[in-house]
Structures are given as C-alpha cells and as structure tokens.
C-alpha cells in the first residue's frame, strides 16, 4: 500500500528553484532512500512533506489525502514523524521531557509511559541520562534521542533527514543498523542521506536527486549498475563517499 505519494512537486525559494517536478512514492514497510549531493533538493522534499516549506505546485498525498497547505502540527497528527537534520533536540529540556514532548499528541497517559519504558529500554543510554539536560548528550546520543522522540507519537512513517551527519564513523554504522531495526519493527521510512553507499546497503528503493529533479530511481542493485551515475554522484573512487577506513560496516 502506498503511504506517501508526491507528484510533480515544484518548490522555489525566492529566485532559486529548489525542486523542479519531483515525483516519488513510499510504500508501507519500505525504507526509501532519497540520495544526492548537497543542494540536490533532498531536504526540501522532506520539509515540503512536513509542511515547513510550501510547494509552488504539485501534489503531496498521504494515504490518498492531500497534505499541501497543512501546518506542521497537522502533518504529525496524520502519522508522519520527522527526525530532522541536525537532530533538533531541545537542549534545555531533560531527556525525559524531550521524550514526553514527542508524545504531545498522545492523550493516553499509560501509552506514553509504556512507550517511554519501551524506547528507553531500546536505547539504554537514554534511560541512564533521563534526568539530564538533552544538550549535555553527545552527538550520537542526541541522534538516538531524536529518533526515540519521533517514535513516541507512534507514527506510521518516519522521515529521517541526514541522521548520520556529523557522527563518528562507528556511530554512523550504528545509525544505519538502527534504521533497519526500525523497519523490521514495522516502520515505514523515508531516508534522506548524502552517504549514498551506506544508504544503498539498506534501502528497498532509492531516488537519486540532482538539481531538483529525480535523476534515477530503482533498487540499490539497479542504481549501482549505472556506471555513469556511480561516477557522477558517488564520486570517482570506490571509497570516496563512505566514511574513512575503520568505519566498521
């Protein structure tokens, strides 16, 4: 079943045309990758789904109903939760307060407590630091908090924007493993990433964006066999896009 369907999406920031007719779909239970170099329009596509950026034309639908023009708070209530670029945790709130706010739309208190227990068991480091200000966490821990916070609303779809950005290579591998685990738990994930090689290792399908257009789409195997694409977007050498040696994946 198709959960998210984007059709002919155009977004413009002033004079800059960020998206020029992007179409994509995300089906239930999939990890779909949105890859490409910096400035290709990946984050813009995600911000459009979340209602932060208003498209100039095109359609964005969730289970057949339009999301265009809805404020961000309404999108989450539909069942789409974001893990934003830069993590965007609330540094002055404690870890627990961050998590509880993730469940701001949940009125059932027992459910909130259940989920809090569940995800702090899943991420033991968060349980240890429950009462600390979230700003005191390391980058990797903040990323886990951002993911756990998004899960607190029991979303159907997770939108993840550059979850590996700024993390040490070992943690990058851990984040990618986590994404696979979440899919195995039944989550549908749209993953925006610059780390093309590792993304192709875990996604069901991917869209390769370039200057606001979908350049290529298909399974990881199909994308890998496109030699030109490999050269143009993954960089020339076989190792240039991945983390340095010792990445542990």
């Amino acid at each position, binding site marked *: 079943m198709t959960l998210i369907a984007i059709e002919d999406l155009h977004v413009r920031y002033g004079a800059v045309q960020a998206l020029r007719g992007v179409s994509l779909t995300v089906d239930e239970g999939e990890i779909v990758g949105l890859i490409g170099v910096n400035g290709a329009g990946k984050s813009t596509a995600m911000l459009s789904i979340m209602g932060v950026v208003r498209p100039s034309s095109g359609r964005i639908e969730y289970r057949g109903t339009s999301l265009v023009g809805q404020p961000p708070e309404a999108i*989450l209530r539909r069942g789409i939760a974001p893990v934003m670029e830069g993590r965007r945790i*609330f*540094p*002055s*709130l404690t870890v627990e307060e961050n998590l*509880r*706010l993730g469940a701001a739309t949940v009125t059932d208190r027992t459910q909130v407590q259940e989920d809090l227990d569940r995800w702090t068991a899943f991420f033991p480091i968060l349980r240890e630091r429950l009462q600390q200000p979230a700003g005191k966490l390391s980058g990797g821990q903040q990323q886990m908090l951002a993911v756990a916070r998004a899960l607190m609303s029991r979303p159907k779809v997770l939108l993840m924007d550059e979850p590996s950005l700024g993390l040490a290579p070992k943690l990058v591998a851990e984040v990618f493993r986590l994404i696979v685990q979440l899919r195995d738990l039944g989550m549908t994930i749209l993953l925006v990433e610059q780390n093309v090689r590792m993304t192709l290792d875990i996604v069901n399908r991917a869209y390769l964006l370039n200057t606001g257009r979908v350049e290529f789409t298909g399974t990881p195997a199909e994308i890998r066999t496109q030699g030109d694409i490999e050269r143009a977007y993954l960089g020339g050498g076989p190792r240039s896009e991945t983390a340095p040696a010792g990445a542990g994946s």
Partner: protein
Amino acid sequence: MNDFVQYVISALSLGGLYALMALGLVIVYGILRLVNFAYGELIMVAGYGLLLFGRSPLPWIVVAILSVIAALVAGVVMERVAFRPVRNTSPTTLLITSFAVSNLLQNIALLTISPRPRAPRLPNLFVENVTIGDIRIKIVDVIALVVSLVALAILTIFLRRTIIGLALRAAADDFTMTRLLGVRANIVIASAFAVSGFMAGIVALFWIGRSGQVWPAVGLQPVLIAFIASVLGGMESLKGAVLGGYILGFLTMGLQTWLPQGVNNYRDAVMFGIVILVLVIRPQGLIRPVYLREAR
C-alpha cells in the same frame, strides 16, 4: 541589625514583584522574540479591575482574583486580536504593534474611565505594620513576598509537569521543531500570553497596593523595570528574569536605605549606572543561554 532584617524583607518583597514582572515579559519574548511593551497595560487592566470590581460588595480577595483573571484574559485577547495577524511578519512589526496596543489601551482607559488617578478599595492589611520585637514590618511586604514565591512555584510546576508547559520551554529552544511534534503553535503562544497576563495581574495587586492608585499610565514604570530586570538577568532565560528581578529589588532597596541623604534623589541614576556596568561586563546578561540558539 534590625535595619538589615527590615531591608532584607522589603528587598525580597520588591524583588519578588520585579521577578514576576520580568517573567511575564520573558515568557513571551522566548517564543515570539517580542518585547511586549503593552505588558504594562495588562497591569493597568488588573488595576482598573480592582477599581471596578471593588465597587461591588464582594470581599476583597474575590475582587483580587477577578482582577488577575481579567489581566489573564486581556493577555490572551491581546495576542488573538493584535499579535496573531502580524505574527509572521518582521520582529519590528511586532514591536511597533506592541507600542500601538499600549497606546490604544491607555487612551481607552483615559477616555472611558478617567485621566486622573483613582483609588481602588484596598484591604487595611495593605497599610498596617506588624511589630515583632523591635522590628517593624509592613504586612503588605510579607504578603507580596509570600505570594510571589507561590506564583513562582506554580509557574515552575506548570512549566515542568504539563505538556503545554514543556511545549512553552521547548518552543523557546526551537519553535518549528515543537510544531513538528504536533504541538499547535496557536496554543503555545496563547498560553505564553496567558502566563504573561497572570503575572501582570499578580504584580498589579501589589504594585497598585503600594501606591494606592491606578491611572492610565500606571503600567509604564513596571514594564520598564521588567525590561531592565530581564536584560540584566538575560533575555533568553526564565531563571535570568527571576535573578534580574531580585537583584534589581535588592539594589533599589539597598540604595534607598543606605545612600546618603543628598544623593538619594539620584537613586535611579546610581542604580542604572550599576546595571550598565554589569552589561558592559556581561552584554548577554547574567545568565547566558547554556546552549546557543541555532541561527535560522
């Protein structure tokens, strides 16, 4: 020694009021980046509430509660009518709007009530003293001290234990992300103004209780004090607002008590001199945000 005990009590009392004033300003600033200069008129609304409700035979405590509620409602209405339509424009527009609202409300009071100061009904407690040993204490100081601590405690519980309270604090860190978690922007902002109005109402009881009078521009001085206290403490921080308020209270009473006779007329000049000196050394205020707000 007795002088000193009296000083501490009156400084704590005044500082508590200043802290509440500053909080009412900072809670809105944290979310909208707006220094709401019409905040003083919320104090005025509560003041005229004391005057108008006070004409009824209701007991004073009921009159006081109604007046605080009036300020709270006025805060929410002010946001809905004046600030929400211009919320997505520039910070300058918001600031100018706050001056316009302030001016408008003062003139409404001037035209419909009176340009001259009026004396609302106040309980006798407000002018009585109590003597313990050889220390004479104004009862109103003690009440103000206790009430401001209770108000601070209520606010703390609200900000820590309720989802709206958490959302208010989170929105001061990152408003867009708060909305992305499904928190409605309108509710967060309306709550901030409600808290602001509540603080203004509590402040009004004692501010007007001190002078015994209410007039259209009665909110001018409190809003300036609130502004100075919050700048001193650090505009980005609720703790800073409280700290700034108490410091200003201790400074004011200290200078009033111990400045030599001839210099006493220059109390405010000396005080602001000290504030400026502090800001030269710590331009961001005494409490800097621990984490820098992301530029966006």
